């Protein structure tokens, strides 16, 4: 398959409403708040939330348009041929430290990312090499239908090669973005300050003199910050504070495209730490024990919807799975009794503050059927990382429904899956479905495999999906009326390019 994108047209599209931006001096400021603590600003060691801290500085090779399709950013086009992906690069771009953005820089980035091995988007990549100054060839380990999507995210974020040697790269990001990180004015654990990049390749897209990302994990504090005008916009999960934003006449709750599908992951599928988990009936009992509708109403304040699979709607969704596990504690107790756990069992579950009430609700459901779930707090920002270790027999995360379904395999199903720390091998059926899904890049061709996979996952019940919520931004009315604020498709960030201060 071969596909080239005409750069300029789609670029304008990506800018949304920013068209007509005159060459004015950047003015004013915009303050954004993230709900997770900043762990690292090194995109290639980055996992979990916190992308808003990176976006002002780092641009990716591609960008997603409002339909979720890749459009050019630092790369102007690509071709996929078998196991190789060829990228054409934008010319005239420099990093903020003065280094040129060219094929050598891209190669250095991709190879570093592959070597570090944190980014799952690069797990399918073997290596990259420069063909000429503006052409890069990426050699794949295996066919990957979503490689371009990956290069629109952290995997495609370009770090200045010289900065890679800085051991403190996690606090001194250097990219090509419209902003540079201002370490002097930033306060650790509190706020990151970004100021315009003087060497930005498209200065007409720089309309803002100062961008701030505040680190406010406390939902109430973030809400107060929004109310008092300390921030202009922030990320929210479906929690009481989001509900209050939705009700407040002075604030608006923006429901962005895509969704976050909250699910419980049974990591210890072989039962090496919690023997009960080895029994499928136990896992199914857990799925039956959850009253998803009540969960949505009480915990998510009705902002979400009950789910039984990774993709509630769309091509990857299996319509037969709706109400796959209706709320049935009686059935759950029966299954537990059959499995020999009539008296229940106990396991530990990691928690960060934003999931506290979700987990307490789940613990309550499980307690109803005799299962004791101990909630163990971990530091905000480390849940994803801790979930990749054998520290906990089970965990809980959100699944971004914008992502490619291949990640179900890469993360959860394969024995070496990032979120399969106990390295339980998939069943034969499952392994076959994982492989089948990668055979094509065509959605229609791949769809049956993933629908089947969804059913299989539901059946094996080591991924217990609970509820899906849209990505929520809480913003002030001024931000809501600001035509230059553009929410990235399926992501918890806003577009830095063309962003102007609120009126």
């Amino acid at each position, binding site marked *: 398959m071969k596909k080239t994108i005409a750069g300029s047209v789609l670029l304008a599209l990506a800018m949304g409403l920013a068209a007509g931006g005159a060459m004015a001096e950047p003015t004013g400021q915009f303050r954004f708040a993230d709900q997770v603590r900043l762990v690292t600003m090194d995109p290639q060691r980055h996992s979990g939330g916190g992308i808003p801290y990176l976006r002002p500085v780092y641009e990716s090779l591609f960008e997603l348009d409002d339909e979720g399709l890749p459009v050019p950013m630092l790369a102007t086009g690509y071709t996929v041929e078998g196991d190789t992906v060829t990228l054409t690069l934008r010319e005239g771009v420099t990093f903020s430290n003065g280094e040129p953005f060219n094929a050598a820089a891209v190669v250095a980035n991709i190879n570093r990312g592959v070597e570090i*091995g944190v980014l799952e988007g690069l797990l399918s990549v073997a290596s990259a090499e420069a063909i000429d100054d503006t052409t890069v060839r990426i050699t794949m380990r295996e066919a990957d239908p979503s490689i371009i999507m990956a290069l629109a995210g952290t995997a495609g974020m370009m770090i200045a090669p010289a900065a890679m040697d800085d051991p403190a790269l996690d606090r001194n990001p250097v990219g090509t973005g419209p902003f540079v990180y201002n370490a002097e004015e930033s306060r650790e*654990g*509190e706020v990151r300050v970004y100021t315009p990049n003087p060497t930005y390749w498209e200065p007409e897209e720089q309309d803002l003199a100062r961008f701030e990302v505040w680190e406010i994990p406390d939902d*109430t*504090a973030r809400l107060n910050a929004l109310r008092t005008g300390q921030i202009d916009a922030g990320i929210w999960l479906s929690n009481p504070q989001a509900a209050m934003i939705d009700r407040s006449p002075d604030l608006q709750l923006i429901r962005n495209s895509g969704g976050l599908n909250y699910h419980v992951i049974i990591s210890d599928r072989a039962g090496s730490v919690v023997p009960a988990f080895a029994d499928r009936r136990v896992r199914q009992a857990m799925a039956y024990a959850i009253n998803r509708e009540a969960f949505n109403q009480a915990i998510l304040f009705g902002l979400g919807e009950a789910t039984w699979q990774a993709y509630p709607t769309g091509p990857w969704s299996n319509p037969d799975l709706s109400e796959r596990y209706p709320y049935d504690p009686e059935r759950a107790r029966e299954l537990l009794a059959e499995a020999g756990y009539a008296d229940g069992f106990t396991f530990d579950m990691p928690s960060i503050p934003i999931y506290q009430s979700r987990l307490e609700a789940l613990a309550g459901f499980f307690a109803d059927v005799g299962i004791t779930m101990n909630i163990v707090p971990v*530091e905000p920002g480390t849940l994803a990382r801790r979930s990749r270790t054998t520290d906990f027999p089970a965990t809980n995360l959100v699944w971004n429904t914008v992502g490619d379904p291949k990640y179900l395999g890469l993360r959860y199903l394969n024995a070496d899956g990032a979120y399969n720390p106990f390295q339980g091998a998939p069943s034969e059926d499952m392994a076959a479905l994982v492989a089948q899904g990668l055979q094509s890049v065509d959605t229609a061709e791949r769809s049956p495999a993933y629908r089947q996979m969804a059913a299989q996952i539901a059946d094996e019940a080591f991924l217990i999906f609970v509820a899906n919520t849209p990505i929520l931004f809480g913003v002030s009315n001024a931000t809501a009326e600001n035509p230059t604020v553009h929410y990235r498709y399926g992501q918890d960030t806003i577009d830095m390019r063309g962003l102007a201060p609120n009126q």
Partner: protein
Amino acid sequence: MFRLLLRRLLALVPLLFLVSVLTFSFTAMLPSDPVDLILGDTGTTEQHDMLRERMGLNDPVVVRYARWLGNAVQGDLGTSFFNSVDVTRAVMQRMPVTLSLTAVAALIAIATGIAAGVAAALYPRSWIDRLATIGATFGQAVPNFWFGLILVAIFAVNLHWFPATGFTPISQSPWDWLRSVTLPAVALGLSSSAAIARQVRSAMVGVLQMDYIRAARAQGLSARRVILRHALTNAMVPVIAVLSFQITVLLGGALIVEQVFAINGLGTLAITAVRQQDIPMIQGLVLVMVGMVVLVQLATDILYGLLNPKARPS
């Protein structure tokens, strides 16, 4: 006075040294392996070994302690295990926040505590005394964080007089700083105010029965003058010891009150560091906190000397 100060300062060195030994040996006992913390489950065994070597973790504890102390003396408390954040810088960035919170709380506690204590002592068994005594007894029973929540509910959420959360540096806007620090400082200062009020009342009652008070009155000095100058000066002597202790308590209390008001001070840093088992950060925090406590003790010692001539070297 200067020599006394110098002598007191020198006497602090062993204490700080001991604290540093305690902190270091204690944190060395933490169950987590720093290399695992840093690399997580990424990285090869070779990478783990290399990092271990580079961080000097293969050296004996004593060597590591000596190196750490050597750097600490020069103001370098090392780098967080968790990210490349410089501990000294992180602590110093947060310190003004916690310090201003503690300082304002201490001022509130001292002012209200002394006023209430003096008033109660002046009119024993009057309604003022009863109110102050009941208030002080309650004040010592109210958890500071709960009081903070109630203050937020009333003054921030309902009345909108103060921001509910956050902290504005004084350099940015003194007025906003005052607004942001008032509620947390009041919440924090309550129990200390109560403790000080009790102590002042008891000391004042004792002092007011002293002959020199009656003698001063017999000389025709006004009641006001006798109470404010003669009685209070002497009553403050035992109160000073309580003040010093209360400021330590306030510093600790600030760690929790900061959570209520989502203030990014040393407390938030400490709790994060503990959850992450970020050893250099914990070590640095403890050392800096003890340093602050010790300076407060020094200041109160000097104050004690000023108020109590008997404690002064002749």
